[in-house]
């Protein structure tokens, strides 16, 4: 049978052909998108963090005694921490720890224009030694003078700093045309002005920023407020690489203070892994959905093709009688299916493109189209449909010609 005849038969059996095509299209749409998302998500973890993951430590504590003077406590803690032989630098940290955003979402703006959407970033609000604890490598400008640090309790009289150091990528995002040094940017919901005095090499620092694809967007301000809630957190830099003892020593030290609990002391590497685990779970769920879609499609195609072949048993027997070998019958059915699969895949890819657009713009899911992955999905779905057809097609090819030609 020539392609011409196959096409004629496809058009004769419109509804079943349409169903098979649709099934394939849906599979391509689902599998295409889930694989884009999974791939992009997993791929993010190849992005280097550029930081000393085994030397930076996040410390989370909680003050449950409401009468405790948090300001005095923090001063005491920092002094004690710095006195530990392992600790190089220690800084109080407000809402943002390394790869662990405690709360809030931070935006930065390059103008006061309320219409313009700002850039997401990891905003580190630190006390002295904050810059050193993060291990920031300055490329332009300077870091903070001691006098520039503001450390007060939250509230209307909270003092604000006036300077900021930002990462290289953020500098380019905010001031693409000019040198960012000396420029003013605006932070917090009140859009307070800060002058850029330094730019540092990119580091992957913020959890929230990473989630929003702005992994290298970060800034450090020399202002830290306490007392907003019960949380009191620190960022430390130690010179013992990944040592468990160090974590214990820190924990024991902080434990001595009454009226608060030490929630966690962890290396940045651990925070990164947690972030990674969460995201890979997401990727694996996506893969699971792909698997189910493939399974449903496979079973669906087998059922549909079995049906479409069962109504054509006689036809196939006649073809055999007229001189079609089993191989030719098999090839014809596979070719017929490939034509349907081709249309289905084309439709599916368009649908995937459209859905992808929707995901990326409306749900802020990362997963832009990966052309070679789309090609693999297309080939995989085609192979799957070919395998699904193979089973009923082989059975059909085995039909003895006399079996159907005898009955009228």
């Amino acid at each position, binding site marked *: 049978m020539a392609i011409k005849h196959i096409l004629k038969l496809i058009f004769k059996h419109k509804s079943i052909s349409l169903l098979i095509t649709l099934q394939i299209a849906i599979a391509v749409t689902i599998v295409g998108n889930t694989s884009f998302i999974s791939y992009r998500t997993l791929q993010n973890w190849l992005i280097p963090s550029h930081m000393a993951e085994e030397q930076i430590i996040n410390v989370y504590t909680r003050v449950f005694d409401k009468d405790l003077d948090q300001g005095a406590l923090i001063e005491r803690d920092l002094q004690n921490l710095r006195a530990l032989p392992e600790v190089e630098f220690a800084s109080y940290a407000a809402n943002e720890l390394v790869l662990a955003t405690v709360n809030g979402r931070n935006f930065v703006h390059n103008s006061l224009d309320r219409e313009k959407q700002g850039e997401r970033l990891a905003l580190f609000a630190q006390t002295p030694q904050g810059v050193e604890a993060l291990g920031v490598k300055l490329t332009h400008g300077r870091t903070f003078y001691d006098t520039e640090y503001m450390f007060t309790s939250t509230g209307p009289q909270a003092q604000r700093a006036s300077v900021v150091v930002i990462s290289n990528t953020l500098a380019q995002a905010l001031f693409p045309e000019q040198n960012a040094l000396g420029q003013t940017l605006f932070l917090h919901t009140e859009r307070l002005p800060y002058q850029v005095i330094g730019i540092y090499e990119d580091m992957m620092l913020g959890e929230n920023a990473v989630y929003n694809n702005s992994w290298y967007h970060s800034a450090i301000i020399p202002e830290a407020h306490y007392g907003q809630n019960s949380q009191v957190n620190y960022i430390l830099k130690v010179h013992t690489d990944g040592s468990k003892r160090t974590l214990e020593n820190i924990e024991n030290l902080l434990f001595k203070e009454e009226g608060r609990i030490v929630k966690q002391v962890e290396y940045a590497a651990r925070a990164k892994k947690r972030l990674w685990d969460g995201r890979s779970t997401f990727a694996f769920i996506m893969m699971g959905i792909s698997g189910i879609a493939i399974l449903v499609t496979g079973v669906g195609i087998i059922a549909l093709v079995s049906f479409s072949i069962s109504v054509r048993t006689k*036809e196939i027997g006649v073809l055999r*009688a007229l001189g079609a070998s*089993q191989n030719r019958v098999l090839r014809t059915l596979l070719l017929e299916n490939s034509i349907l699969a081709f249309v289905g895949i084309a439709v599916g890819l368009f649908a995937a493109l459209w859905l992808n657009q929707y995901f990326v713009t409306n749900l802020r899911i990362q997963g832009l189209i990966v052309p070679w992955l789309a090609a693999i999905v297309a080939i995989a779905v085609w192979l799957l449909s070919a395998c699904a057809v193979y089973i009923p097609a082989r059975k059909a090819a085995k039909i003895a010609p006399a079996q159907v*030609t005898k009955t009228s």
Partner: protein
Amino acid sequence: MLKMNDISKIYRTDLVETHALSGVNLTVEEGEFIAVTGPSGSGKTTFLNITGLLETFEEGQYFLDGEDVSQLSDKHLSRLRNEKIGFIFQGFNLISDLNLYDNIEVPLIFRGLNKQTRKQRIEESLELVGLGSRANHFPAQLSGGQQQRVAIARALAGKPRFLLADEPTGNLDTMMARQVMALLQEINRQGTTLIMVTHDNELAQRAHRNIQILDGQLSDIAKSQLTDLAV
């Protein structure tokens, strides 16, 4: 051209074994015209199917042009069916989803003929059976007799050396039956070997040789005996 030694065919179902053919011996020479008669259910179609390589058999040997067909692969058998044998089935077996032109074209494509030749052969053979103007009709739009003629046209288009016809006039009126018969005789005269199953003794008379099948047993009979068996 064809030689059968002791061919037997048994159909086994859960309850019964039907000996559709038992111990068939037959030699057919190139260019012969053989009419096969016998009562319903005696094994005529089974015999024709085995001859036409549509069915396998349990015992015996079958040589077609000197080749032992029981040894051949499916591919080889399919090619022989397509190239050497033309089959006119008892129930036309046209492909209902294709029009007449396409129906006749299918075996020609298997043969590997080019488009030009195919077109010419299709038109010729449709003309021959008087359906030249109906190429674009579908089988369901034709009467039983017309469908029968399409089946004949399909068998003839391939210009087979060996034509097997199972009741080719069964669905035709006397007039048409005679015309088709004349056509088959003409084709035989041009060299095609013809084996035809028929209930019509008058048509059977026109064959070179008559064979009768009774309960799966095959035997040559004289023309004078034909009338006695009219069913």
